[in-house]
């Protein structure tokens, strides 16, 4: 198991009645990074998070957070983390301010003035200052989610674990949550699960992808998006079969995909040698004079494409 991550799991597994829901997952999350934790429904994301928090126990394997064992040292770990659950639920009769005051008491015995200041800062951060003294039972889903983020970071944790932090939010609320996460990254590592791949691509440094309880990908996001084999998109006019045939004969090309849509013919060309492709591709296409190139660009792969390719599922975004 590598030893440089704030979260390290080693063949972490969880089964219910001999049915594995998490199967020998070994992942690592770097310090001071935002790590998006992806996977279709039932992939094992929430199970992993619950294991990390000590809410459930692993069937086999192990994991550490801050170098401490998640089973043996759970209390010490929980002193340094903040957690937002998938469906945040608090005591409805309490106000937002009372909820934060209640939460902060688990971490600190600071003077009231000091904790009040901390609570005000948290309410300000999530934009709930004007609703601070209203009972939570009257809060909307979005407000509850914001309060969830406020309580999760009230102890200034070294690690924030957020389970679907933007799931219940409208686009504006989502944007606000991403902004909050960007601000929090200055002082904490954020490990968050989500279905919204667009958000992951916007704020995350790395991603971990689970499918069917198994880890299927783990990489810095730029590495995953800009893979070793670039794809070029070429739009042509003319004899498409002849162009396709010529392209397929080139050693620097791995794959050619013909796309015909609305009378326009284009190719997605996956290459294994970027320099050779950029030097020779257009000449190859127009070599017999039966085709012309009307568009040529390197295709920016989206995380969603990779996610679908890896899991075979479309995201909910």
């Amino acid at each position, binding site marked *: 198991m590598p030893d440089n991550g704030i979260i390290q799991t080693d063949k972490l597994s969880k089964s219910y009645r001999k049915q594995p829901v998490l199967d020998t997952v070994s992942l690592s999350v770097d310090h001071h990074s935002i790590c998006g934790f992806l996977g279709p429904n039932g992939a094992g994301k929430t199970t992993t998070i*619950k294991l990390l928090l000590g809410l459930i126990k692993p069937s086999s394997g192990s994991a550490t957070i801050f170098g401490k064992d998640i089973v043996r040292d759970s*209390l010490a770990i*929980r002193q340094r983390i903040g957690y937002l659950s998938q469906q945040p639920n608090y005591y409805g009769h309490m106000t937002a301010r009372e909820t934060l005051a209640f939460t902060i*008491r688990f971490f600190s*015995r600071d003077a009231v003035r000091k904790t009040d200041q901390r609570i005000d*800062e948290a309410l300000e951060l999530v934009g709930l200052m004007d609703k601070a003294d209203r009972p939570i039972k009257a809060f909307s889903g979005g407000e509850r989610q914001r309060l969830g983020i406020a309580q999760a970071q009230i102890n200034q944790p070294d690690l924030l674990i957020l389970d679907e932090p933007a799931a219940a939010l409208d686009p504006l609320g989502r944007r606000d949550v991403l902004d909050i996460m960007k601000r929090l990254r200055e002082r904490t590592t954020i490990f968050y699960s989500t279905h919204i791949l667009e958000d992951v691509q916007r704020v995350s440094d790395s991603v971990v992808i689970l499918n069917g309880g198994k880890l299927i990908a783990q990489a810095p996001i730029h590495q995953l998006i800009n893979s070793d084999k670039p794809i070029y998109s070429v739009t042509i006019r003319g004899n498409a079969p002849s162009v396709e045939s010529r392209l397929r004969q080139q050693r620097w090309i791995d794959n050619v995909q013909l796309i015909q849509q609305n009378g326009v013919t284009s190719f997605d060309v996956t290459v294994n040698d970027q320099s050779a492709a950029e030097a020779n591709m257009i000449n190859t296409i127009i070599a017999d004079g039966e085709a012309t190139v009307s568009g040529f660009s390197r295709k920016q792969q989206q995380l969603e494409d990779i996610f679908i390719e890896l899991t075979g599922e479309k995201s909910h975004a």
Partner: protein
Amino acid sequence: MRSTTAFENSERNHVLMGFMPLINKELGELLRPRSLLIQLLGWTLFLNGFLLVTLLVPREFVDRPELEPAERAELMEFISGPETPVMVFFLITGMAMAIAAVVTLQDAIIQEKQTGTAAWILSKPVTRLSFIMSKLGGHLFRLVFIIVLPQTLLAFVQLRLIGEFDINLASYLMALPMLLLFVLSFSTLTLMLGTWFESRAYIIGIPFFLIIAYQPLTMMLSPINDALPYKLVMMSTDSGTTLITQAILGQPLDTMMPLLFASLYVSLFTITAVLRFQHQEL
């Protein structure tokens, strides 16, 4: 945004980590003025009102002219002593409190598990022992300070002033833990069931059955009645009164066994609840 306040993490790992904020929350809920007033008034009206009726009505009933002298004498003998009102008051109090304890405690664990607040609390540096103990502590506080002491002290005054019975305050106070122990037998059972079952039907049903069906149960289980808590407040011993009545009236107790067994059950149920909750998946 970086906080301007320095953070002092003062708690160190211990088995009751997080207990204080949790018990403060439980007490805060109980002591909200409106809720406190409603509970105090409700219990007082019900229990002390019942005692008042027990103390007043029978005299009118006995004074009815249509009664034969022999019949009247027999009834007078029955109501003239403190045994009947004391026994009836504590039977009703014990039964009502046990039912109320089951109703309030059945939610303590299961609702928090189902709504996710238990998982939220336990994602903080809080031990599971603290979580269970805060529930039990809040419950005990409620029993002692909102239900048992105010109503039973008022009942003492009623018995002395209206019933004109010569009851010793020290004996009276010394007997009250029996009532607590009786109620705790059912509340800790409910707490334990809350850690075992996900369905409220079992969590409420089992203790309710044990409280309400105590008469057929004690008849069926007569050889082991001393090992059950009923004789403390609900079921008469060989001398015709309950153990708490005997203790209040300064009489020697017929048996200590129900007292010992009830203590054993309370400990056993509490320990089982704690152990079970330690391994519960949230």
